[in-house]
């Protein structure tokens, strides 16, 4: 989704510049021309498929929007018996579980990337980096199983009771320690997005010229000061980009979250309560949605998920662009 939406923006941008200064292609050879047009067709097919999907989802979701109007996005009653459908709790669940994932995964990933690139000797960083990347290859459902049978009981027994005892007054940690719920979903998402963020951060750090590091060391920086000065400061935009890609993955992640979040479409401040995300409710209820309105409401949730990730991506791209302009190009 991330890649596709970016591609479209780029393409629109190209089309707009193209119309202002038309460059004439001069492929004399027939083969080149066929090649050019077939690739062009593929590129446009992609756009077409995306628009088609969007249109179809919009069409299917329309009855729900017509029936509930804006209430669909701002109420959190989700009841198939009374046919009351409001997606607020689902949006809340998606956003909060993704935020928990980012809070846990971003510092950890940056730390891992710094260690692997800047501190660890090569004999250690190569295999360790490989293991981190392997985490990305584990199927979502396997994460879900692990989350259900290992992570949730672990949280229930060892993590949540002390949190309730000591930090219960924060309201974030109140209620019975169930194991499954928002916290479990956030933790499992964090593990799932860590390899992505780590891998991109490593690329970003690798792109920094060695002479920046030497400049810092040459001024008498300790290793940590050098990392701050020469590496972290100049990678802000890159690290933000990595975070966004991680967020993109967390927002849409379905299977593992469905298995550990408890599937209760309700807004609770406590992170230990069960919740529901936009993706997980689709996985949960699609097969058994019997009324047309229920089906339409689910499709509308899908559309909302599509729009939420599009908006977040848009904001994030804007931020990256701003940071880039401020720090790298320097004006």
């Amino acid at each position, binding site marked *: 989704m991330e890649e596709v939406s970016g591609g479209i923006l780029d393409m629109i941008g190209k089309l707009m510049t193209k119309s202002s200064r038309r460059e004439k292609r001069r492929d004399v050879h027939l083969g080149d021309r066929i090649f050019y047009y077939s690739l062009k067709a593929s590129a446009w097919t992609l756009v077409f498929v995306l628009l088609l999907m969007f249109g179809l989802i919009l069409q299917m979701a329309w009855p729900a929007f017509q029936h509930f109007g804006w209430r669909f996005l701002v109420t959190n009653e989700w009841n198939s018996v009374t046919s009351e459908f409001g997606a607020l709790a689902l949006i809340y669940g998606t956003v909060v579980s993704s935020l928990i994932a980012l809070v846990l995964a971003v510092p950890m990933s940056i730390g891992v990337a710094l260690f692997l690139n800047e501190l660890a*000797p090569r004999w250690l960083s190569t295999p360790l980096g490989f293991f981190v990347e392997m985490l990305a290859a584990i199927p979502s459902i396997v994460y879900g199983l692990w989350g259900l049978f290992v992570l949730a009981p672990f949280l229930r027994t060892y993590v949540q009771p002390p949190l309730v005892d000591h930090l219960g007054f924060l309201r974030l940690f109140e209620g019975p320690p169930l194991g499954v719920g928002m916290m479990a979903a956030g933790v499992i998402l964090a593990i799932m997005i860590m390899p992505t963020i780590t891998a991109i951060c490593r690329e970003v750090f690798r792109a920094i*010229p060695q002479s920046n590091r030497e400049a810092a060391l*040459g001024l*008498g*920086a300790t290793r940590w000061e050098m990392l701050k000065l020469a590496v972290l400061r100049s990678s802000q935009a890159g690290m933000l980009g990595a975070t966004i890609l991680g967020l993109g993955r967390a927002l849409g992640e379905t299977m593992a979250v469905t298995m550990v979040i408890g599937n209760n479409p309700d807004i609770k401040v406590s992170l230990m309560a069960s919740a529901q995300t936009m993706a997980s409710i689709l996985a949960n209820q699609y097969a058994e949605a019997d009324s047309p309105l229920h089906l339409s409401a689910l499709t509308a949730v899908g559309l909302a998920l599509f729009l939420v990730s599009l908006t977040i991506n848009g904001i994030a791209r804007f931020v990256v662009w701003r940071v880039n302009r401020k720090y790298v190009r*320097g004006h």
Partner: protein
Amino acid sequence: MPADNFEREKAIVNLQHEILNVDNLHAWFGDFHAVKGVSLAVQQGQVVALIGPSGCGKSTFIRCINRLHEEVPGARVQGRVTIGGQDIYGRGADPVRIRRYVGMVFQKPNPFPGLSIFENVAVGLKLGGISKRTVLDEQVERALRQAALWEEVKDKLRQPGTSLSGGQQQRLCIARALAVEPPVILMDEPTSALDPISTAKIEDLLHELKKSVTILIVTHNMQQASRVSDKTAFFLLGELIEYGETSQIFTNPARPKTEEYITGRFG
């Protein structure tokens, strides 16, 4: 005057004259023997040019003087280097502290991205634990004036260092090194990435700077070496072939290899 007092006076006098002493220095990259037993002494307030063909070990040599060479994986150093009488490879010598007293300017201008012009110059002071605003302001202005950059940047100190032109960036890097008032500054081909006008500005600067700082400069440009330096050291294949007064090296070299190189017959 008691004897030990006299010894100390003598040491201080020596210190004023001989700022840097290198004795039988060897450096390796893995198996590659890059610097082979180089010894040389530098007097305070001089500019010493290091010349020689690419790969002759001159850059490696100056990177041993602020212990930066050892940061490269697989690199190794042997020998004795004293700066102001202090053995920088001695037991208990802390490379981080040593680098605070030996400034370095690199081949390509490398201001820290994300830091303003002011912050770039103040960075060394801050690393040294100075945080008082008035001291920072004062030292940054002094360093920028010394680097002949003050007039050009005084109205835009908050702008990023990377917004300056290449030549200005390099003078910013010189100011960054000067801010902590190091007794010695190492320059590794500081003008090789710059245009002739920026190069001339930096050469002029060196004449001013040597009143207060001792400078070791690696250069591939023979004219530059003869213009800016008091002494010249000629390196070849990791060895120091000849070291002497610049005027003598360029007009009447003692070794045939030196003459062949400076007249452009190889390298």
